[in-house]
């Protein structure tokens, strides 16, 4: 399992930047992120190398910040790999709340990051199917 940092961000030019500046100032590295097109505000979700510090610094800056568990699986560069993972989850009757991916860097493979209602249970199910859930992206 992996820790994800979620930040409440208003829908305005420059508001994501305030988050990245705060993280950069305190040397926190971002390994994956996503946000969607919602009308007034969004939840910026990230995987970073130091979630506790990220939360601390962002809270100091006035951001509402939340840490939660997500699951990450390394993605082999093979045809059909996503289809296989999602098939396994379907077979285990796991509902995915949201899914995004990390970027590959310095010879590391990318990973798929997913959030379900019960991360421990999902991880157990994936293990049975032979997947190796990772605890760190770096």
């Amino acid at each position: 399992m992996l820790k994800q940092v979620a930040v409440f961000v208003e829908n305005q030019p420059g508001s994501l930047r305030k988050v990245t500046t705060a993280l950069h100032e305190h040397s926190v590295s971002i390994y994956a992120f996503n946000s969607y097109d919602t009308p007034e505000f969004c939840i910026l979700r990230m995987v970073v190398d130091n979630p506790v510090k990220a939360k601390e610094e962002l809270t100091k800056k006035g951001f509402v910040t939340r840490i939660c568990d997500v699951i990450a699986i390394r993605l082999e560069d093979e045809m059909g790999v996503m289809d296989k993972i999602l098939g396994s989850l379907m077979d285990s009757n796991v509902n995915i709340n949201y899914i995004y991916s990390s970027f590959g860097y310095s010879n590391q493979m990318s990973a798929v990051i997913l959030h379900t209602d019960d991360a421990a249970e999902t991880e157990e199910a994936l293990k049975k199917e032979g997947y190796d859930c990772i605890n760190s992206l770096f």
Partner: protein
Amino acid sequence: MIWAPEETYSREEIQAIQLRKLKQTVAYIYEKVPAYRQKMDAVGIKPADIQTLKDLEKLPFTNKSDFRDNYPMGLFARPRKELVRVHASSGTTGKPTVVGYTRNDMHVWTNNVSRIACMGGASKEDVAQIAFGYGMFTGALGLHAGLENIGASVMPTSSGNTKKQIMYMQDLGTTLLVATPSYALHLGEVVRSMGIDPEEDLKVRIGLFGGEGMTEPMRDEMHRVWGNSFLCTQNYGMSELCGPGVAGECPELQGMHINEDWFIPEIINPETGEVLPPGSKGELVITCLGKEALPLIRYRTKDLSMLMYEPCACGRTTVRMENLFGRSDDMMVIRGVNVFPTQIEEVILQIPELGPHYEIKVERKNRLDVMTITVELIDDRLLDSYSKLSELEKRIRKSLKAALGLDATIQLVAPMSLQRFEGKAKRVTDLRGDGL
């Protein structure tokens, strides 16, 4: 501690003082203030017609517009050379309301504020930080004089510069804070965000709040921020009447004791002007007794309240006015429904996921009134999913609908992103133009 013996007089004693002073005040204003004499003449009332307290009802009202019409000093009963102080109200539009004091008025005012300060728990042991804006506003210098008079150590920090306020609070051991409730909450939030626990690290134990009303949920919020043992009371006044010193809460928190030997309160129906019996809600009307520079009879405050004559457990016998229900001129009519900002505040403060600050915007879209309420999100658990956020939004709308009978659009923003106010909070923006 009770500052003046008059605060514990029997009803008969209080009424005897009121009647004596009322007769003097009416004779005085009739002689000295042509604008009010004309009003009395217009309804055919002479000073000699005032023989009982009930006769007060025969006298014409004084309105805010009388100050405008007689700007700047047309309502004054004394020449300028006899004034030792001039203040002005924080008029948001047009000319301010100018008020003045003779030396004797200053003495009465100061002692009336001392009474209110003692009611709110102040004593000569206190270190009082006055975070009201100084200047022409009566609040700061009024509390300043009243607290100095009881022997407290007064620090005139004025409003603003929150970090410096906190530094003085820490370094000089402030025990008593004078501020508007919204600024006191803001100060408390900043104190907490600096990692200071007010209960452990500061000595602040009393809050004397004024300048704007404080609802009960706001008082609860004040305890959350400043600690449970924080004694937080509000007091009432307005510059036309003298400034602070008209009424204040005692630790029983059952309404504000009016300094009845100096002010006669009435509750009227704001539509008809008819005097309502004790226990009725309506507009507060105040007659000032014995004021030399600016005597005022039946001043319509526009504040909505109720009078309670039962003696209080604190030992005072003076009438209490219920904490303000709202101002008759703060009332908005939205889709035909009367709405007070305080009603909205009560709903918002009862939702723990939200901060205590809010803004209300009313506009007209396609001929329909639309109310948007902006609130600060403070609970990180909502970030688990968008559905939790939209569930919160629905919950706020539902509670508002139950309280007001009106639907509102909710806008969630990040904490500390709404404007904080050092004086009176301005939370309502009405973009409808006609104000209706």
